């Protein structure tokens, strides 16, 4: 079991790192989809052994939403957009990867210093969760396409969920499903907004949404 958990966590970290270095938007969507499936598997192994209905249902919901529904929705928006499908980062891919590696080191260092009252399911859990959170935040601020910001939000959410699933036991099903539902509606509403942005502006560049401000230079 531990081998499974560890390899899933390593793959999680790798997908986040890969996302920082990918140039094609379709490719990015696929990476995030893969990460969603990993997250579903992590839910299964986190409930050590006891393969009851609850983790099974939750894992199915996660894989269904994060691995299938979101990527499908975002890929559709991208197809309709008919715009350039490059990521167009504000920070180059090489520098992004470099920063990613630094963030990974930072997460490892930080997790060494966190006094945990309970033992997590794997020693890699906290650093991987922290790294995924940081990577998500970095994608949100360093990428130009609005679609990429949605992907960044998803990765951030994945990181937070990783932290929760590995450390916190006994979250009621209603709350977990509620959180999942909220994320689903959030991505859905963002998808609709993306669709409108594309129709209104003929581009999906978030850094050109700059009309509203207090002082014009």
């Amino acid at each position, binding site marked *: 079991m531990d081998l499974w958990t560890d390899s899933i966590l390593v793959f999680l970290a790798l997908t986040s790192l890969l996302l920082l270095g990918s140039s094609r938007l379709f490719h990015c969507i696929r990476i995030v989809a893969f990460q969603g499936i990993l997250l579903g598997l992590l839910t299964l192994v986190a409930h050590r052994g006891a393969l009851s209905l609850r983790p099974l249902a939750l894992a199915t919901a996660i894989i269904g939403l994060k691995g299938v529904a979101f990527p499908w929705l975002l890929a559709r928006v991208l197809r309709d957009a008919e715009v350039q499908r490059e990521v167009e980062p504000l920070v180059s891919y090489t520098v992004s990867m470099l920063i990613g590696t630094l963030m990974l080191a930072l997460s490892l260092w930080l997790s060494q210093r966190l*006094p*945990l*009252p*309970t033992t997590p399911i794997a020693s890699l859990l906290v650093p991987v969760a922290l790294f995924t*959170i940081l990577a998500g*935040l970095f994608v*949100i601020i360093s990428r130009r396409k*609005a679609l990429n*910001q949605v992907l960044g*939000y998803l990765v*951030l*959410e994945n990181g*937070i969920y990783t*932290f*929760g699933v590995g*450390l*916190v*036991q*006994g*979250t*009621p099903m*209603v*709350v*977990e499903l*509620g*959180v999942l*539902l*909220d994320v689903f*509606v*959030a991505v859905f*509403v*963002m998808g609709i*907004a993306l669709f*409108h*942005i594309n129709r*209104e*502006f003929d581009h999906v560049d*978030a850094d050109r*949404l*700059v*009309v*509203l401000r*207090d002082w014009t230079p």
Partner: protein
Amino acid sequence: MIAALLLLPVLAAVITFLLRPDAPRRVLLVATAFGHTAITAGTWVVQPASVLGGWLQLDGLGRLFLSITSALFLAAAVYSAGYLQRERRGAREDFEEGLLFANAPEPTFTSCLLLFLAAMTLVTVSHRFGLLWVAVEATTLASAPLIYFHRQHRSLEATWKYLMICSVGIALALLGNFFLAVAASDAGGAPVPLVLEQLINAAPHLHIAWLKAAFLLFLVGYGTKMGLAPLHTWLPDAHSEAPSVVSALLSGALLNCAFLGILRVQQVCVAAGEGPFGQELLVDFGLLSMALAAVFIVGQADYKRMLAYSSVEHMGILTLGVGIGGTATFGAMLHAVNHSLTKAMLFLVAGNILAVYQSKSTSEVRGVLRVLPVSGMLWVAGLFAITGSPPFAPFLSELTILKAALDQGRNLVAIAYLVFLALIFVGMMSIVLRMAQGVTERQPGTPEPALAIIPPAALGVLVLLLGLYIPAALQRVIEEAARALG
């Protein structure tokens, strides 16, 4: 009763979405608002039973914020019945850039409005932290389509910023939830469920470092939603681009709900003996928000943005009040009521001015008192109220906070507070008085529509009355709310 409060707006939202004719849909909106307010008023007399094993219940804090939300929604619903009637159908010209745009379909708007009410109600009654998070995120999602009612690119930009910034902020609050769970995972041998009362009972056994970290994440996460500087960046855009009735709800009800999220975790901190840690942070954020608002209000060129920055200022005052503690907590709770009523009134009046002048620019609007006598009078009165002039209610609550700061010997805080209030007073007055007076070529037209006047006027009368006399029942509710924060 709690179930009725939640189900009524949800049910009405479904019906309004399906209802094709306009008139019954607007009637249903107003009727639901009346029903919600009536049930809320009922909770003042009868303590409602808790639902879902204590997850949903109404305590002092919840009752105060629920009442504010419900009252504001009633005013907004009546106003929007008239507003939707006046909005023209089909494509029309945008007054700022001359581009063509249309409105979002009215059923969508109405049902989102009602879902927004349901989500805010859920925030006020949630005692389970996870559920509270779900509810706060739901308010963001229900209100995003409301901001994009006028389908043009500026409101779309505002909606996108609102969605992204608030979602990321609230995601951090979710991490705060998990941190709180870690803090409670080893309290006296067994993990404590994240229900407010049980956490407060187990507070001495919580892991302090994790609790502090959780508080920080909650403060940053819900603080983003509340519009605390420097996390307020979405707020002026969303408030200025949304229809005025939505701005009124965002400013008067939604920001308070986010504040409630912070207060809930502060309650746990107080019980764990870590109250001063949170309070120091709240004082800092409060003063920073007031300072930033002062900078942006002076010389502001857009009167709806001016009101938005004033909301940042007042959120600062609320956090400052809770941060100072003691009688200032009472002042802050009273101020939450006063600010909400006053700010909602001002946004509704701003909507009336915008409808006639077709401009949000402070330099293009002149002679409001002559062109729109009633709205003009409310505009000036509201501005005196929001800047804390007697005899209006915000004066009382701001004075209470100042007095508490001085009593505790925090003179520097008191001085900074006064300086910012004075700057904002001067900044807003110079803008508003020029708008109200001045020479314009416009002639007073037809009398102003009743539905556009009655809601802000009613709110204005309330603000004036509360300034003169606080009813015993309200006093009791506010004291109960303040007691919860120690």
